[in-house]
């Protein structure tokens, strides 16, 4: 009989360039096919890419590649867009591919001190970096402002 219930999290794993990353599915609003991004005059920069159409509304599109300093590797994979949401603020970011959803337990995380990364994990033969969504949201909230 376990003393405490092990905390299990559901993680969405996706690929940016050569690397795999994960975000808790609770933060994810939806995954959609890749769409055209419209540059915003006087506002678009490295991180804020522009505006994109999500469900008929114009949303802010950001580059996680730029934030995490990763190079894109388009290859044969069809790109996707992931929409994340927190307290009414929504951001969309393109990724190279979405690998799937995994469950992971808290203790399986190997802590790391790399920027934006909570830790490294290996589940069902997939090695990926679990992102620190708090930190990411904070950075994004500062940027367009």
């Amino acid at each position, binding site marked *: 009989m376990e003393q405490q219930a092990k905390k299990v999290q559901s993680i969405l794993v996706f690929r940016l360039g050569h690397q795999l990353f994960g975000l808790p599915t609770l933060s994810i609003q939806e995954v959609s096919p890749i769409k055209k991004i*419209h540059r915003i005059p*006087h506002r678009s920069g490295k991180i804020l890419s*522009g*505006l*994109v*159409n999500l*469900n*008929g*509304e114009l949303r802010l599109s950001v580059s996680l590649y730029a934030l995490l300093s990763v190079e894109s590797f388009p290859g044969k994979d069809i790109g996707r867009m992931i929409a994340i949401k927190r307290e009414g603020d929504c951001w969309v970011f393109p990724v190279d591919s979405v690998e799937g959803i995994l469950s992971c337990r808290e203790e399986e995380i190997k802590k790391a001190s790399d920027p934006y990364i909570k830790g490294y994990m290996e589940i069902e033969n997939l090695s990926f970096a679990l992102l620190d969504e708090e930190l990411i949201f904070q950075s994004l909230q500062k940027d*367009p402002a």
Partner: protein
Amino acid sequence: MNPSDSLKELFRTELETQSKVLSQALIDLEKKPDDPYLLETSMRAAHSIKGAAKVILLEPIVRLAHAMEDCFVAAQKKQIQLDVQRVDLLLKGVDIFSNLAKTGKKEMGQWIGQTGTVIESLIDELSDLKKGTETAQRSETFISTSLITAPQEKVLRMTAESLNKLMGLAGESMVEARWLAPFGESLQKFKSNIKQLSLTFDAVQSNLKEEDLNDQAKANLQMLQIQIKNIYEQYKKHLIDLADFISRYSFLTERLYQEILNSRMRPFSDGVEGFARIVRDLGHELGKEVRLEIIGKSTLVDRDILEKLKSPLTHLLRNSISHGIETPQERLSVGKPEEGVVKMEARHQGGLLEITLSDDGRGLDIDQLRKLIVEKKYLTDEMAAHLTVPEVINFLFLPGFSTSKDLTDISGRGVGLNVVQNTIKEIGGRVETTFEEGKGTTFDLLLPITLSVMRALLIEISGDFYALPLSRIDRTVVIEQENIQLSGNSPFFHFFDQDIPLVQAWEILELVGTRTSERQIAILVSDRSAYFGLAIDRLLGEKELVVQELDPRLGKIPHILAGSLLEDGSPVLILDVEDIVQSIKSYLQMNPKPSKQTKRILIIDDSPTVREFEATLLKNQGYEVESAENGKEGLNALNLRPFDLVISDLDMPRMDGITLLKEVRKDPKLKSLPVIIVSYKSTEEERLKGITAGATAYLSKNSFHDLTMLQEVHKLIG
């Protein structure tokens, strides 16, 4: 047990609704204190609030509502009559309710704690009121309560965010639905492939000799033939079903979209709910009797426009009551009824929404305004005297102009009318003011019917789609490479008989672009004084776009008004032409056109407004301008300094235009100087007189706004 959040939300909604009902009923009761319908309505409203407050466990509100309910019952029983003071007291109660409705769910308890003492004393006063004057106890039962209320349209509330999401999803459904038609067509093509299969089979079969086939082979071939035929038939049927579905589905998505678009409209009455109260309170404060009439309550207005109109309409209303409507004594003395009337009317007229606010007060005192203009040092006495009536009225809309002697709360802040005009301009409308001295003033607001749909010109800049509101564009022009000239580093081209500067759109928008010297496609935009050419990559035609507000986190983006989506779901940004014209002007000032020897023009006119206007017009074209107030001054200037051209009025003090012309033509130095006469007088007779006296050209003063004057100037001196 704590009332849940959703219960509290329901309570707030009910409180808000009932407060409005009570407010209106009380105001009407003031004029008709015995009206049984009004008393019943008020009693029921207070009763509902009491019941709702009980559920939410807000005890002070329960008691307040109960006290008010008692007053109404007493009035129904004819024990008291609701006079002005009593209505005032009851309205204070309504204020408590509406203020409570405005607090957040979490703060309600706290707010009641803070206002506790006010509520208690109000309850006491109301109890006294209920006992009121001791009228003879009549044993009549109060009026029967079987009143028929008019059937009302059921209104629901939803957040703006929900509505936007609905719009977005409906729009996206239409985008996805558009995929169906081309898909259907490709399936049609597939049908012909099957047909081809069947023909190939026939060919194969015809090349086989009957005697070469054994029974099994024959059977197989037959089966093959039947199978191909079946596939073909079934496929054909499915295609027909699909075509039907595509047509039904497209129709549905379009209707869904239209309905949601239409749900943005609300009746005008929604936006004027608080006004009766303002009229009553302000009237009392100033000792005036005023009645508000609202016409066109059911006229549909875009909900955003209605929201934005609240503030300007409130201000114009307060203005009318404080400055327009006279005191009852004054009104009687000029033969008007004691009660002044303010009318607010909304109607659709010629594709626009027209909202009129008029009063039957004293109108505008133009002379008083002239004095004020001088007092505030805008103009000298003499200049102010020369202003036309519309010019004087324009001063009312300048920031800081107030006609109130003291800055009280009412409308003397001197900011108001300017803000009104700006808000109206923001919506894309305009204000027109008319008055009749002693009879009243009218403000006419002309507005677009909806903000949500805009007719625009679709263009491409640096690979992205942009749109320009059609109403703000003059023309589109294609300019061949050889027609682009350079003035220093600034390119320009010739059109409308003038040199028009050409600026690249991507430069103004700080995008990445390429400077090519091939043919340019330019959009002609203008402000009141000059044209500018905005060069773009591609012209894509006219579209009707549904406007979306951009994410507020982006702030106000320079040169951008809003966003939208195309039929295929591509994002579009709608450009702010005013912003762009301003930027073009600044950009050009940094790279000014070097003069090939700047031409100098002398303007002679006794109206400072005309002088200012003409001077700006000409300076923007790169001319050097000097001005004079009358013929004598003009002649002096001509003798002192060299000029290339004179533009002169006819009617002026101290030497009119004709005399000036004669003097100029007499002088050997000035004899061949081009002179353009610009005058209000434009009969053939006057023209002839001017030309005979020596005018090089004769224009009428109506031609300022169609650039004839500029064309003439350019023709004469280049």
